[in-house]
């Protein structure tokens, strides 16, 4: 297998490249000019996926020369709500898909999506299966809508495309530099939460996430799969196991409080974007991934 991995300089990208290189040469793609991989079978290419020309040059240049047959699209904008994020999440995904379909060598496209694409609501099931309604509310944060659009861009090509398309909707990867809102929330020594609620959250380790993408890259056929983590626990237990203190406050105070924190410290956590899941359960059901991909989360997070 010859793989191409976008977002290769992220912690998940690096972990996946290390796994895939065991199965064949890997073309690692990142934004940084000086991205380095020590393995001789890993070739690093710098490319700005928000520029169409750069994407074309990547697919018809190094990817074709390299004989890439699997493209794993991990690139995500780490900061929510930035102008470049829409170009990266939606336009780059669409273009990569189209060029992958036209490519003479590519046979498989694996797209990284997230659990945030699901609508978590009071009147919806606690267990999120792949057919759970997506977050299409006009009031949803822009970055969530972008991820839904990118997810749908990949899903709508399934069955029509000459290549296999796989979408992995991952639980939140609780690791630094992964754009995790929960990780940022937990970085404060005191975590404020809405009083009277303690919903279940499911978090994914970097090891399990990279293993899921490895299995998806090596597999065959198309499909959408939830990738849950091995840790399902109440929000307060997550805070406690992270060595922090949780303090319950009335919900309406939390939005302004975290907005002030964002302005003062440059933190990324936005309460408004997480309000639903700070009230109601939303746990990914991974039975489909277990059945079709053979993926079962096994690595518990070492919190604290």
């Amino acid at each position, binding site marked *: 297998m010859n793989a191409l991995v976008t977002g290769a300089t992220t912690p998940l990208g690096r972990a996946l490249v290390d796994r895939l290189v065991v199965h064949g040469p890997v073309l690692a793609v990142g934004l940084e000019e000086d991205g380095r991989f020590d393995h001789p079978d890993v070739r690093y290419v710098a490319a700005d996926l928000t520029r169409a020309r750069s994407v074309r040059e990547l697919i018809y240049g190094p990817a074709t020369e390299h004989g890439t047959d699997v493209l794993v699209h991990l690139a995500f904008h780490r900061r929510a709500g930035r102008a470049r994020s829409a170009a990266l999440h939606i336009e780059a995904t669409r273009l990569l898909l189209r060029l992958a379909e036209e490519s003479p060598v590519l046979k498989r496209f694996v797209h990284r999506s997230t659990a945030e694409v699901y609508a978590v609501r009071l009147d919806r099931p*606690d267990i999120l299966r792949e057919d759970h309604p997506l977050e299409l509310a006009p009031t949803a944060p822009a970055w969530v809508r972008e991820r839904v659009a990118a997810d749908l861009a990949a899903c709508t090509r399934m069955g029509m495309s000459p290549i296999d398309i796989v979408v992995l909707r991952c639980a939140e990867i609780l690791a630094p530099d992964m754009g995790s809102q929960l990780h940022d929330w937990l970085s404060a020594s005191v975590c404020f939460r809405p009083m009277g609620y303690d919903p279940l959250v499911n978090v994914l380790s970097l090891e399990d996430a990279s293993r899921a993408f490895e299995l998806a890259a090596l597999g065959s056929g198309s499909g959408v799969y939830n990738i849950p983590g091995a840790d399902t626990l109440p929000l307060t237990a997550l805070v406690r196991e992270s060595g922090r203190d949780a303090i319950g406050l009335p919900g309406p105070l939390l939005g302004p409080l975290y907005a002030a924190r964002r302005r003062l410290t440059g933190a990324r956590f936005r309460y408004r974007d997480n309000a639903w899941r700070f009230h*109601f359960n939303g746990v990914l*059901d991974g039975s489909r991934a277990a059945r079709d991909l053979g993926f079962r989360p096994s690595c518990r997070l070492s919190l604290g």
Partner: protein
Amino acid sequence: MPPRLPRFIGDGRLSKALLGPELRAAVEGLPIADAGHGVDRFGLSRSGAARGIALTRFLYEHWFRVVSHDIEHVPASGAAVLAANHSGTLPVDALMLAHDLVRNRGRVARIAMDWFVPGLPWVNLVFIRGGGFSGTRGNFHALLEAGELLLAFPEGVPGIGKPFAERYTLQTWRRGHAELAIRHGAPIVPVGVVGAEEQMPQIARIEGFHVMGAPYLPIPATPVPLPVRIHLWYGEPIPIPSLYRPEHAHDAVAVDEAAERVKLAVRGLLARGLAERRGVFR
């Protein structure tokens, strides 16, 4: 030095103290599919179940003096649906049934809650940690697949909110429990709850009150539930798997027929319970 009160409550020592050895053993023996951190995928925890049983013990033993009839009709294991009449302004019937099933059958009743309950602060935690779940179809599916014992009130909010004059009159009987039981091949156990319909008569309600998603604000005749005696009558299971095939879940006539069987069985249990009881408080 005596323990600090918040810690005494929070770490479960209060629950253990209130449970006593027999109930503690019953709670310890409950089958709970731990998802890794002491809770299952819906939020049920053993400590939450213990807290629920401890808090309802006084009500069960002394206030309502609950009498359980024919609980052996509830399957000892595997997926099943309990369908009961609903009444009483406060969901005392659900709490007493849940307590009874832990105490006398060693099973956790997964109580299908109306959608507004998970939105109520603190109340949601008491119910969810004790086995309740938001009564959506998706949750119903997942729990039946997992082989759980579901407790449904097909009358829904109109049942618990009916005026005193309509006690023991079954309200519109919803079909969802029958459809899902057919789909999953789960037996339905009809349950007649006698006594709860008199425990907190409702004299009026404010329809425009929708704080936290509540459907209305009830005005009960008494500030606290009356100490009526509650009888729980478990009927013979309706053998759904031998009467219907899973594809019948798509057949409205078959679903209606199954739901009607359950309704008639509950009505029969209520009639028997009312005929056999010696008085509301005895």
